[in-house]
């Protein structure tokens, strides 16, 4: 059977997927590039839209906020997820039940989580009530420029940590027990075992989680739009919300397109790294 005949067969099997990728991903991406290079009412390509957004203080502050958010939220979520995964990596009774409870928020739409946290973070809500138990006075939360972004971080972490924990827990369970036995024979304590056995063995899932988490957190939208609308004083104006506002509230399509292209390029870079790691595993399987 000839390989060229296989190409036709393969094309037939792939046709729906190729069609979907072309229409739903590649075409809109090309549209975005095309439109982003056309300044309002212009007929020739230029970088005017890009120059405009990168000199616009509102867009600048949105990029800075997004980067700051990423730098805080990703290590935080991964540290908590890793801590929980280590705690749950055992055969103690009831572990499966508690693990399910931690995973549940993952399945709920982010908009529902946001709506519920909006109630919990009200001045007279559940969050302040819990703080009162520890003798801490009422906090302004979402109405404070100093605390609003921390609230967004709290909500997105409550949603996402269980997912990353699941991946890391699977990684932990893949580590051969014999490595820990050897480490004990060498006289390593718990801390040394973590550093010299657990961390190196977890390198692949940890890298994957770091990349995937970074991508996910660049695109946080529902909690911002529902809880704070980017405020107060733009302190929570993450890039997805900024793009949305430009396109639909301000009606500034051109600069929204330019911001979208910037975001897509960012994603492509991060996803390419993610794919490389997934691809490596595909070859081994």
């Amino acid at each position, binding site marked *: 059977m000839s390989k060229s005949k296989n*190409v036709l067969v393969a094309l037939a099997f792939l046709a729906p997927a190729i069609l979907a990728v072309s229409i739903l991903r590649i075409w809109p*991406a090309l549209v975005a590039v095309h439109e982003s290079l056309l300044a309002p009412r212009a007929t020739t390509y230029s970088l005017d839209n890009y120059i405009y957004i990168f000199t616009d203080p509102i867009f600048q502050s949105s990029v800075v906020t997004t980067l700051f958010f990423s730098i805080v939220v990703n290590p935080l979520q991964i540290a908590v997820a890793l801590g929980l995964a280590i705690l749950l990596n055992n055969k103690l009774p009831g572990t499966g039940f508690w693990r399910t409870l931690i*995973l549940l928020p993952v*399945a709920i739409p982010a908009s529902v989580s946001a709506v519920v946290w909006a109630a919990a973070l009200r001045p007279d809500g559940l969050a302040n009530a819990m703080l009162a138990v520890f003798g801490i006075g009422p906090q302004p939360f979402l109405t404070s420029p100093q605390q609003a972004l921390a609230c967004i971080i709290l909500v997105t972490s409550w949603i996402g940590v269980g997912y990353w924990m699941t991946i890391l827990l699977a990684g932990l369970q893949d580590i051969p027990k014999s490595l820990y036995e050897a480490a004990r024979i060498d006289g390593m304590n718990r801390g040394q075992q973590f550093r010299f056995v657990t961390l190196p063995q977890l390198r692949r899932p940890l890298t994957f*989680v770091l990349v995937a988490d970074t991508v996910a957190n660049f695109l946080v939208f529902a909690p911002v739009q529902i809880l704070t609308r980017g405020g107060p004083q733009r302190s929570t104006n993450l890039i997805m919300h900024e793009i949305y506002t430009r396109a639909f509230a301000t009606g500034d399509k051109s600069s929204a397109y330019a911001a979208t292209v910037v975001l897509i390029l960012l994603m492509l870079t991060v996803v390419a790294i993610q794919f490389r790691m997934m691809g490596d595993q595909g070859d081994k399987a």
Partner: protein
Amino acid sequence: MTTARIKPARVLHIATIAAAGIVFFLPLWWIFISAMRPEDDIFRYLNPIGWETFLPTRWTFDHFVALFQSTFGRSIFNSLFVAVATVAGGLIVCTLAAFALAVIEFPGRNIVFTLMIVSFLIPFDAIALPLYYVMRGAELQNTYLGLILPGVGNGLAVFLLRQFFLGLPKELREAAMVDGMGWFQVFWRIYLPLTGPAMISAGLIMFIFQWQAYLWPLLIAPATEYKVAAVSIAQFNSAYGIAFGPIMAGAMCISLIPMLILVFFQPYFTNSVASTGSKE
């Protein structure tokens, strides 16, 4: 196991795990009890915290009645319909593609695989804006098709199914072909009957993706007739003033469906999530 083996360290370990579980579950529990107590009671027992904070003293189902007399029932139906249709369409598209990429040998296979996965993996929301204008141009705004289409090509699903096909022995295909089967028969009669577990995993991922979608349905289907539940609930504030009872009841309805699916299919979900990050 005897009681003598219960050591303080293990008790402390279990207590820590339980505390973490409770912290994560607490907001969900709060949704459920708030949905079933009178509006006045939702914030009444928060200060100071007591047992009444977490257990209703008066029960009511009025919020659910009010909820389903509004357009919310329609939204839940829309969400279900869109998610199920996405899973059906997505499984066809992704299984066919995964089969070609795993079983059929053809020149350029790796390049196609790379391109397809990378473009599917760009999180969908990143291109929501240009896709919105493309789809609005195609008059797909406020249609089920507009809601469903973006979900059918799922990179993770293709990846999972391909991994599964790669794990099946080559001899299956070779023997079938010696018997005179064509590629489609090999796919339909040999591979597909074995693919159940992988298709459940892939279907779960697509269902949860579509059930959670917010930005895309907000853009493409704002009309009440096509509005999905995740969008409806975010607009309750303006529709009801701030009536937390119906909000909590709605949140409970929307949450229970994926939660039950997750609880029943957790091994599939866990396996699929795990295999993306660590399984070698």
